[in-house]
Structures are given as C-alpha cells and as structure tokens.
C-alpha cells in the first residue's frame, strides 16, 4: 500500500500539473474577462456575472479541447447542408491592437486580409456592435471593409455578426422575411468564419447598408438616414428620441459635396411627427411615406413580433428624391426575440406600437390598409409556407455548422437545440395567431337608416378594412349626383366626397367607401416588456353614407366588400353615433374630377402647383415668367395641332429663364402632349423636390409626347428628366439642349421617330433605365449621343448616331443591342467600359446588321466589357487608320461576319437577345420591322 502511495505520489504531477495549469488558465481568463466587463466597463443592459463568466469559459475550453481531438470537421458536412466559409486573416499585432482595451480598442480599423475568389486581398477589419455579445467573448463580431474599392460578393463593407440568440438564425430569417414582404433589407447569409485558418464558428454575413443597397433594390440613390441614439452613440442630457432630433441622424450615401440642408426631408418628417395628428398632418405624412412599404414594415413588425424599431434606434430610412418618399430599410430586427416572447398561452402582440412613428401610423387609414394587404398577401400567396421551409433549411444548416463551432453561445449545445425548437414553434404560433386575427376574423358591419332617412349609418367591427359598400336595389340604378362618407370628429361631421368613383351597374351601386375600425390605445402590463405595454383595443368605427336620392333607389340589400369577398351587413334599428377619435385618412376622397381647361394666353408667375386634371386647348400659349414653374399633380391632356401648337415659352422673349414644367406623382399617369413646344426653361427646386430639367416627369406612368419640340433650354441642366416613370416619345425633336437632352433614371422609355440635335452634353443618358429607340436620329452631341449606364438596357433599331464626339457609351453592367443602325462620323463611335466601382461588371454590347462609316476610331471595349459586331459594314474608305486588323489587344471587341461590303452575310431572322427579356413586350412591335437583309438603317 505504501509503495503504491509512494508511486502515486511520485507520478502525481502527471495528473495534478495539467489540472493546475488548466485551472490557472481558466481562473486568470475568467477574472480578466469579468474585471474588464463588470468592474471596468459598464455593459448594461447586459450583465456578465462572475459565475456566468466562469461557467461559460469552462464550457468553451472543454468544447475547444473536444473539437481539437475529434477526427470530425466541417469538411464532413454534406455540401448541400453546409454553409459557405469566409476566410479572414488578422496578424497577431493587429489582433492585440484590437483586444488591447475592449470594447474601445476594437472600434479602430486594423489591417487584415480576406480570401476573395481570386486570392487574398487587403482589407480593414474592426470589431462592431454596441453590446457585450459582440466583443465580450471569444467569438466577436467584425466589420470588414475592402481596400481599393474592391467588392467582395458585391459589397465593399460587410459585417460578420455573432448570432444573438440560442436559435442563432433570427436576424438571417428576419431579413429573409423582409424580402418576402418586399421590404429593403441588407443581404444576409449564414457563414462559417475562419480566422487565420481556425474556425471561429457560425456568423451572420450581413451587408453594411449603403447606396449599393438602394441600387440593388432598384431605388434612386437619394439618401439613407440612420437614426441610432443608443449605447455608445447616445447623447447625455437629451431625450435621445430620434424623431425629435433630425440633425442627429447620420447620412450614409456618399454624396460628393453634399447639398446643405439635405436633412430637409427628415426635418419635414420630424416636424409632422412633432405636431398633433389631424386629417391635414396625416395627409402630409401619407404623402411623405411610401405607404405600401410602411404597410409591409408594419406587417413585418407583427409577423416577427419585433419591438426593435423604437424611439431611440435601428431606424434606416431611404429617401427617394424623385418620388419624394421615404421607405424603411430593415436593420437589426432581432425578430422572434426569445426574451420578449409572450408566455405560452398568452396572446401575441397584434399591433406593435413602440415608436412615435408607430403611434402615428396606427391612426392612419392608408397605413392600416397597406399593412392589412401585406399580411393577407403573405398568407394567401403561399409566402408563409415558403418562408417556413426556408426557416427549416436554415435551422438544419445552422445546426450542422454549430456542431463544429468552437465558440457557441449559449455554451450548452442542448440550450441551442431547445432554442431552435421553441423558436420554430413560436414562428408558427405567431403566424397562426396573426392569420386568425387579420385574415380569418374579418369582423361584422352593422347598418341602420339615419333618422332623417338621408343615408345609411354603418358601424365597422374587426381589423379587416371595408373596401367598398355595395347597395343592391330592386331596379336599375343611376349614379347619384352626390355620394359622401361622413364621420364624426370632436362631435363635428367631417365629409369625404366619393361621387367620382361611385359606379352604378345594373341594380348595384358600388361606393368606394374605405372604412376601418379604430384602434384605441390601452396600456396593458406585460411582464418584462415595457416597450409592448402600449396595446391597441379595437373600437368600432362609425360612418354615415349619404346619397342623394337614396329613398328613390329602393335599396334591398347592403353589402360590403371586405378581403375580396362580398359580405352582408347586419341590419339594426339604429346605431349610436360615435367619434372617430383614433383614426384619420379613413377613406381617400374620390370627387368628380372636373378638369381645368386652359386656353388662350396664360401667364404663370412663381410656382404654380395644379392638383386638378388639366386640358390645354390647341393654340394655348403658356407664358412662363422668370423662374416660374408649373407642377402638375393631375393628368394633363395638352393636344395641340400642327397649325395651333401649344407653347410653353418665356413671358418676355429673350428674358431670363423660367424654371420647370413637371409631371409629379402618379396622379399624372396617362398624361398626353401633342404638338407642344417648350422653350427657355431651366430647372427648379421646390420644397423638397428637385426638378433638374426644363421638363421633368417623376413617378408617372404611361405619359406620352407626340410631335413635340423641346428647344434651347438655359442653364446647365437637362432638357427632359425622367425618374421612376414610363414615357413614350413619338416624333419628338430636341434642339440645342444646354446639357443632356434626355436624362432618364429608373424609367422605361420608348422613342420613335425622334431627333436629338446639338446636345450640350449627352443626347440620351440612361441610368438604371430601359429604353427602346427606333427610327431616330441623334446628331452633333458635344459629348456622347447615347449613354447607357448603371445596369440600363437599350434596344435600338434603325437609328442614326452621327457627328458626335462619342457615339454610344455603354458601361457598368449595362446591355445594349443595336440592329440596323448607323454610326456615322463620330470621333469614337462605340465604347463599352467599366467605370463605377459599385458595379463590378462591365458592359455587353451587340451591333447587328449595322453600318459604321467615317468614324475616327474602332469600337472599343475595355476591361471586362464586351462588344460583338456582327454582320456589319465597317466602311472606312476615307479613314484608313480604322482597320479592324489593327485593333488593340486590350480592346475586347469581336467582329463576326463583317466582311463583304454592304451586303449582309446571313439572311436568317434576327432574334431578340435573351438579356433583353424585360424589354420584350415593348420591343416586340418594332422587331417586326427589323431587316435581316440590310446593313444599316437605310431602307431605300
């Protein structure tokens, strides 16, 4: 026994030494971590106790040891169930620099490297995040910014974010849900991150929002405002309520020489929100916000039960300068947060009012209707099921990755598994309850005759909006001369005219009376959730529908259209009138639209904004005084004739320039201009709106200009500016524009038989737009006749590009196809290149059955751009330097079948290229006239 004890004593160090070393290592690390984040740094609201630090550290060390000796690795996960890996390299010196005094030291960028598909590239790396989770443990959240404007996965800056909750996939799935609802959200992907070759674990690879996000969603690069006044960015001594402090919002878009006062839209929004709700202020709000997007945002909040868009942080609002509207961008939603879930058995939140904007929106009929529509579409279009499938796939992949994650949080795998199960169940429960409340339980509508028999009293119950009232009569009905929906506000009657959109069909009268119940604030205590204590109680909405000649109609049945279904109302003897205190903009007005008629000579002074429809008679002369502008908000029908054109001219011939004539907003949809002339305008900035042209069309569909002329504008602005619009130009002539003749952003346009002469800069400039150009002639552009950029696409048929410095410039992921076109006498007839670093790709151009003649150089495609010149004539007899056999090596232009003089090589029909599928509906008509047996535009 003694010998055994002696032996054990002699060899005891083999056991005690590792234990002691492990213990000391653990104890030192635990103490350091606890001291840093509990004694020194104030990590509230998160708290790191000594016990938690010790236990977590022990589990982490044990897990690392087990993974180190395990023969399994990430490589064993089947490819379809595995996550992508991001490889990051940070030197020891840089790491110690980051870790020197956390979290402060972590916010300074250090040099690092990132594995791109083509090898290692230099990047800047730092830690990110406001709270302990992001930098308090082994696994830290990173922000990575590429150097030299290189794009990794299309992004210059991105985040690798430590998942917040046991289920690990909250934000990722939140962003996916946002996409299903049509909301803008950063790109997010679950990835494994290797740091210096070692697996750090699973992360959320998340785009850092910038103007690239706007481009990705087809939005104008206006401005992104960031409202975050929390943690390290909170300001001491003030409320930190972002909607009261517009100047504290950051701006993300990199605008060179930002315009002073570019906070103006946000300031306007803040001023509305700082006032009191009223019909007027609610209308202003509805004009400033893209209500469809905010409706989807409201649906997102409910479906994810998030309260993270509060009074102090997480606001990302994109401002579109052309539509003049804000759209929300989802950022850090922490959806289905386990710490804020209602207890099992208690109700989920059917409305989430956690910010001032929320309070306003929940009293706005436009918002409530848009939100309801978004929720219904989510459930009825199969998106819910699709999303749940995605959730299952994400959980499976995450689960596989976490098996090899050395730094999981929570540190017990069982907690993660349990978290995932309850997470999945909670999503399903939320969807079930929301569907029940919003889609299935529509509510009732009661009706009664008004005591004076002048109309019908209606009382709306339930969250589903009533879209229209249907009156069934026992005889054929005529549209009444007056239809009005009334409600009570502070005891006074408020009327909305619906006459204009009321439809009589056989024995049914359809009245577009949108009616909602109202949602009254009720404070309800919910344990541990102070932000959710502002709940809303449904209260019936009381309305009165007043119709002339109601008694003569002999109404036999009153129905309402609700959720695309006709529902019978409940008749009752009388309904007690009640105030509509908590709801504004219940129904949009639909008055009879009686257009203004303009004739003779009209002098415009200052800024004139016209909301009515306008008919301008032939021969009308609109004299624009100096700096006067004309903004149409309704439909314009300006039909001049050859003999009697309509003219928009300076009031004093040769006087100072007038401002702008604009079609602004979708009220102008379908506007027509025939035989109209514009001369001597410049541009205008009116309120928040910028109109950078003599004639601007913003946010307007289906406009048409036929046989019009735009002549000599002044100041260095465009002649015509399009944004978010679709416009047809037929037989339109542009002459001597001071800058671009036609500039288009995010629009669709069609030009037929048009002439653009003497553009001061570019003839046509397309930015993220698509265009069809046919039988047109562009000549003498000082810079470029046609610019196709930023993901635009152009099909040109039988069009001449002549005598310009540059004929056509296609760049930055844009496509252009020229068929039967002429490129004549240009310094540089055709260029394809990559210029904007935010568009990683170059341009693709095809020229078919066309003619190049008298140009000073060959078509040129640089970098990753390509030009295919197929079956074209390259007539260079008077310019011997233009010789296709001598093209530069770095010129990626390809000539195919370009020999044989002016005779086409092949006579097979020409197809529209697949990349122009989006233009197919527009292109189909003109394509019938494309000739395979001709090179160039000449038909003789």
């Amino acid at each position, binding site marked *: 026994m003694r010998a055994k004890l002696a032996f054990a004593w002699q060899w*005891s*160090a083999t*056991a*005690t030494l590792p*234990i*002691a070393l*492990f*213990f*000391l290592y653990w104890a030192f690390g635990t103490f350091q971590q*606890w*001291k840093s984040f*509990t*004694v*020194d*740094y*104030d990590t509230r609201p998160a708290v790191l*106790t*000594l*016990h938690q630090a*010790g*236990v977590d550290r022990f589990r982490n060390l044990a897990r690392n040891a087990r993974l180190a000796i395990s023969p399994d690795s990430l490589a064993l996960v089947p490819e379809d169930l595995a996550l992508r890996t991001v490889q990051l390299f940070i030197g020891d010196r840089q790491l110690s620099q980051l870790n020197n*005094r956390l*979290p*402060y030291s972590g916010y300074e960028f250090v040099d690092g490297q990132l594995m791109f598909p083509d090898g290692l590239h230099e990047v800047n790396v730092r830690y990110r995040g406001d709270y302990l989770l992001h930098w308090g443990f082994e696994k830290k959240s990173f922000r990575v910014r590429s150097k030299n404007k290189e794009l990794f996965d299309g992004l210059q800056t991105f985040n690798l974010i430590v998942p917040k909750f046991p289920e690990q996939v909250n934000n990722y799935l939140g962003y996916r849900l946002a996409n299903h609802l049509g909301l803008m959200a950063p790109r997010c992907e679950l990835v494994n991150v290797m740091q210096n070759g070692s697996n750090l674990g699973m992360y959320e690879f998340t785009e850092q929002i910038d103007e690239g996000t706007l481009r990705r969603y087809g939005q104008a690069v206006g401005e992104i405002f960031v409202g975050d006044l929390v*943690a390290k*960015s*909170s*300001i*001491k*001594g*003030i*409320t930190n*309520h972002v909607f*009261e*402090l517009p*100047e504290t919002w950051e701006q993300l878009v990199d605008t060179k020489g930002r315009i002073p006062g570019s906070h103006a839209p946000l*300031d306007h929004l*803040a001023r509305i*929100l*700082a*006032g*009191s*709700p*009223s019909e007027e202020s609610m209308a202003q709000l509805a004009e400033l916000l893209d209500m469809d997007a905010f409706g989807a945002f409201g649906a997102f909040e409910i479906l994810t039960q998030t309260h993270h868009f509060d*009074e102090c942080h997480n606001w990302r609002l994109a401002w579109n300068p052309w539509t003049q509207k804000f759209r929300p961008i989802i950022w850090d939603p922490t959806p289905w947060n386990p710490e804020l879930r209602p207890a099992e058995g208690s109700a989920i939140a059917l409305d989430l009012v956690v910010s*001032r904007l929320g*309070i*306003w929106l929940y009293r706005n009929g436009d918002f409530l209707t848009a939100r309801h529509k978004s929720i219904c579409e989510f459930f009825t279009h199969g998106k819910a099921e699709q999303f749940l499938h995605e959730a299952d796939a994400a959980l499976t992949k995450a689960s596989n990755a976490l098996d090899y994650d050395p730094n999981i949080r929570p540190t017990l795998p069982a907690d993660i598994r349990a978290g995932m199960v309850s997470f999945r169940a909670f999503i399903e429960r939320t969807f079930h309850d929301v569907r029940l409340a919003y889609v299935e339980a529509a509510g009732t509508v009661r009706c009664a005759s008004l005591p004076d028999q002048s109309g019908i009293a209606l009382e709306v119950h339930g969250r589903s909006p009533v879209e229209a009232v249907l009156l069934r009569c026992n005889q054929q009905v005529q549209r009444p001369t007056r239809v009005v929906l009334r409600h009570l506000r*502070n005891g006074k009657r408020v009327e909305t005219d619906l006459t204009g959109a009321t439809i009589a069909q056989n024995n049914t009268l359809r009245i577009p009376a949108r009616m909602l119940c109202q949602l009254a*604030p*009720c*404070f*309800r*205590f919910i344990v541990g959730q*102070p932000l959710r*204590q*502002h*709940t809303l*109680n449904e209260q019936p909405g009381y309305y009165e529908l007043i119709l002339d000649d109601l008694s003569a109609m002999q109404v036999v049945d009153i129905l309402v259209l609700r959720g695309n279904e006709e529902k019978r109302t409940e008749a009752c003897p009388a309904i007690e009138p009640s105030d509509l*205190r908590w709801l504004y903009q219940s129904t949009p007005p639909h008055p009879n639209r009686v257009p203004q008629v303009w004739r003779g000579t009209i002098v415009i002074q200052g800024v004139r904004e016209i909301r009515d429809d306008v008919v301008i008679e032939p021969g009308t002369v609109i004299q624009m005084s100096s700096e006067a502008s004309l903004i149409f908000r309704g439909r314009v029908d300006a039909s001049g004739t050859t003999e009697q054109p309509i003219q928009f001219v300076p009031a004093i011939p040769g006087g100072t320039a007038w401002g702008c004539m604009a079609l602004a907003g979708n009220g102008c949809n379908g506007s027509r201009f025939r035989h109209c002339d514009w001369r001597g305008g410049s541009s205008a900035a009116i309120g928040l709106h910028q109109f950078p042209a003599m004639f601007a069309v913003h946010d307007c569909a289906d406009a048409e200009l036929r046989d019009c002329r735009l002549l000599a504008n002044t100041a260095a602005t465009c002649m015509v500016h399009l944004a978010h619009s679709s416009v047809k130009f037929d037989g339109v002539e542009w002459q001597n524009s001071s800058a671009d003749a036609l500039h288009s952003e995010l629009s669709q346009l069609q030009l037929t038989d048009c002439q653009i002469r003497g553009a001061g800069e570019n003839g046509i400039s397309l930015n993220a737009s698509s265009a069809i150009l046919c039988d047109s002639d562009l000549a003498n552009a000082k810079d470029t006749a046609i610019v196709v950029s930023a993901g635009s696409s152009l099909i040109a048929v039988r069009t001449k590009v002549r005598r310009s410095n540059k004929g056509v410039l296609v760049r930055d992921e844009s496509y252009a196809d020229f068929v039967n076109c002429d490129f004549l006498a240009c310094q540089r007839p055709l260029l394809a290149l990559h210029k904007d670093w935010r568009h990683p790709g170059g341009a693709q151009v095809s020229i078919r059955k066309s003619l190049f003649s008298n140009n000073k150089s060959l078509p040129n495609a640089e970098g990753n751009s390509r030009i295919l010149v197929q079956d074209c004539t390259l007539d260079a007899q008077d310019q011997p330097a233009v010789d296709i056999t001598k093209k530069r090596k770095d010129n990626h232009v390809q000539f195919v079948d370009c020999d044989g003089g002016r005779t086409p090589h092949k006579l097979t029909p020409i197809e529209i290229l697949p990349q122009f599928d989006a233009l197919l509906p527009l292109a189909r008509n003109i394509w019938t006239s494309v000739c395979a047996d001709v090179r160039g535009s000449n038909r003789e």
Partner: protein
Amino acid sequence: MLPRSQHLTTILRLSLCGVCLIAAFTAYTFDRQPEQIARIESWLFRKLTDPRQVRFDAALAEPDGKKAVRMMEQWTEDEAQCLRQDHLADKVQSAYQWLSHAAESRDDLPQATYWMERWLEFEDLSIIPQARYAELLCRHQQLRKKGIEILQGMVLRYPYHPEPAINLVNALLLENRPADAWQVVRDNYTAIRSNLCTVLWDIGDGFDYESRRSTILEVIENGTLRIGFSIAEACTGIELRLPPFLTALLSEPSITWATEASSAPLNLCDPKLQSRTGVQLELNEIEFNMGRLRCDGGSTPVIRLKLPAKSIPGTAFEFRAQLQQLPTRALMSPLRKDEFAELVTVLTNRGETENVALLRRFRALATAEDNFELFWHKEGSEFGADRSAQTPVALWPENDKVRFVAEFTPQAEAADLRFDLPGGLGIAFTIETVTTTVSGVRTEVQKQSLSILSTNDLTFSDDQFLVTGNDPYIIARLPVQVAFDQVRIEGTVQ
C-alpha cells in the same frame, strides 16, 4: 543537493495538489453554490472599486480648497485609464466639472477651460460639457468665435435644448449681434419639440419606470391639449410625464376618468382638490401659477395623482388643458436688454411687422416675468427696504400684449405706494386696477383716484408708462391712508 531537490520536488508536488484542491473547491462552488460566487463577486467588486470612489469622495469632502483641488487632480490622473462608458465614468466627469468650477471660482479661466476640454475629450456626446466649454470660450475675446461656432452647431443639432441656446444668445450679445441673438430665441421657440408623454400607473405597489409604463402622443387641437388613454388594470395612481423640455402655460388643467359615481373633469389647480375629491396631486418641474400650471423647460415635468379609490380595469383617462407655448424664462430674460429695444426700431424700419410683434411680445413677457416690488410709507416717513415687498407675477400672454397680476401682502399702513417695475427700455406698462384688501374687504382703487406723485425713468402718455431707463417706478398716493392686508395690481405690458 539530492535532499534539497527532493525537498523542492515535494513542495512542487504539494503545491500542485494544493492548486488541484482549490480547483476542485472552485468547481464545486461554481457548480453547487452559485450564491457563494455571487457573494465573492460583490466582495471583489467592492474591493476593486471602493478605494477609487472613496478617494473621490474624500477630495470632495476636503475643507481646504487648495488641498481638495490637488487631491481631485491627482485622482483624475490616477483614473486616466477610465473611459467614457466605464462604471467610473460619471465620477470622472464629476471630477472634471468640479475642477472646472473650482478654477472658475478662483477666476482662473484658462484652467477652467482646460478642465472642460479634458471633460470633452473624455465625453464628446454630452450636452452640458459642450455647452459649458463653449460658454467659457466665449468669455475670452479671442476664443469667442470658436465658442460661438460650437454653440451654433449644438443649437442646430439639439434645437429645443435651452442650455446651448441661452449660452449662444449671451455670447452673441457680447459680440453686439442682437439680431442674431434674437434669431436664436425665435428658432428655439419654433424648434421641433417632443410631443411624447410617458404614463406610469400604480396598482398599489408604487410607480416603477421599468414595469408599468407607456407612451402616448399629446394632441393639441385649437389650443386644447388632450392626452387620452385607457389602462387595462385597476390602478391607484397615475403619473403623467409631460414632454421633456416643455415650456408652456397650461390653463384649466383637468383630468377625467369614469368612476362608478361620476366622470366629471377634476380641476388640477383647485386648491381644495384633495379635500373635495380625495385626489392627491404632486408636481415635479411644474409650478402652480394663479390657477394654471407652468412648465419652464425642465427635463422631467411630472403630474402625479393618487386616486381616492382603485379605478375600474379598462378605465379611460383623459388629461386636458389649454396650452400656450412660451419660450423658457432664461432665454427670454436677455431680451429685456437695451440692444433689443434698438432692434425693435431696426426691424420696424425694415418693415418686418411679424418679427417685431413677436419680439415685442417676448420682451413684454420677459419683463412681466420679473419681480415687481412695492414700497410704502405713511405720512412723515420715507420709502425704505424695511417697508417693501416683492412678488412674482402671473401672466396671461395675449396676442399683442401680456396681462399681468401682482399680489403683495405687506400688511401695513400706507398713504403712498411706490411700484418698482421691472426694467426694459421701450417697454410700455398700463396699470389697469389696483385693489387693496383691508380686513378682508377688497376695494378697487380706480385709476383716476390714484394720484401719481412722481415717476422715475418713465414717461406717461396714452394711458401707458413707457420705460426710459433702468430704474422705473411710480409713486402714487392712495385716496386715504389705510392699513391693508393685500395690494393687487393688474395691468398689461407691451
């Protein structure tokens, strides 16, 4: 050597065993007795932080000023590692503030500025040090421009906060730029302000910001403020936190809620509110002002009500008042200066009618805000400080003038009265009534029966006294010598 090495080995083995025993004990405690770990943690926390705090407190408590400064300076140097979001950050900031004040009290402006700079380096996202630093800079003629720039930036970012605006107005006046100073006052008055009220409700266990709390918009319709909400629980008290930095007069403030007995509105300014209704009222950063409530830019204006009985669950509450927005007193006060009297003339000449009207109104408000002073004497005696009384006034701002009421309770016998009016070049006073109360009987002294003996720094025309100097007063003789309890003067300021 051998025994010695054996001895060392034994010690090493024993040490390792000791460490293992500690490890085992630690593991056991962590696993089985987390409460012990919590105890150790709080002990350790105190051990590591208390000495630092004790030294700070000792410096504060040191009676010898010079020594206290040395101690505080040493403390800040020792805590140089502390950064803005650390636990001790508040103490460090207090130390910088204390040191700056101490230097200022020694008239050592450069040192005061230095400590403010240190504070700002430490915490650049705090209103007070920024505003105060800029204010100190503005006191140096050479640095004033920089100070003004800082304050202008702050006013732009935090438009409704009074502190930067007040400092900027004063700095601009030092630069003799009253027009710019007036613009600052106007901008502050029209700035975006909070309209968010916070409601806390008590179900019998006290108000708790972290649990029963919600927010609601104030709604102002035609000058009437309405704050309405329901509370799902039965509650015994309501705390209504009005919007932070609210500067307004709330007339006829009332609260309504339905009880089984009634749902009539309760006037919160009723002096007998508690005895009549059992409702207990407490105010914070709100003052009573002649039957109205006045908020003057406090960060947490609170109305707290203890209800006489528990409300019914789901009860709807509504707070109502007539609201009249005012600028903060501190921002209005400089408007009484002579420069603004000249500015009135300049703006009038420029034809800026609206601007002039607003400036005149604010000047009248600022003037009427000041204390009125009453002196009296009997026949054969002189006016003196021992026979005087001061009183704050109540205001009723109207569109083009401010109505005021000043009540004095001298309880003395007097034949002559001297009203010392607040100064303000160009301000016009109208005295409409003087009411005396003698043995509880109120007597209105008609204007015409008051004989004006003399005036100082005032001219009288069109029934108005126009201030022409810095010490305006009126001496008036009462019809008869009386012993009165109260004198009440009503009039207008323009």
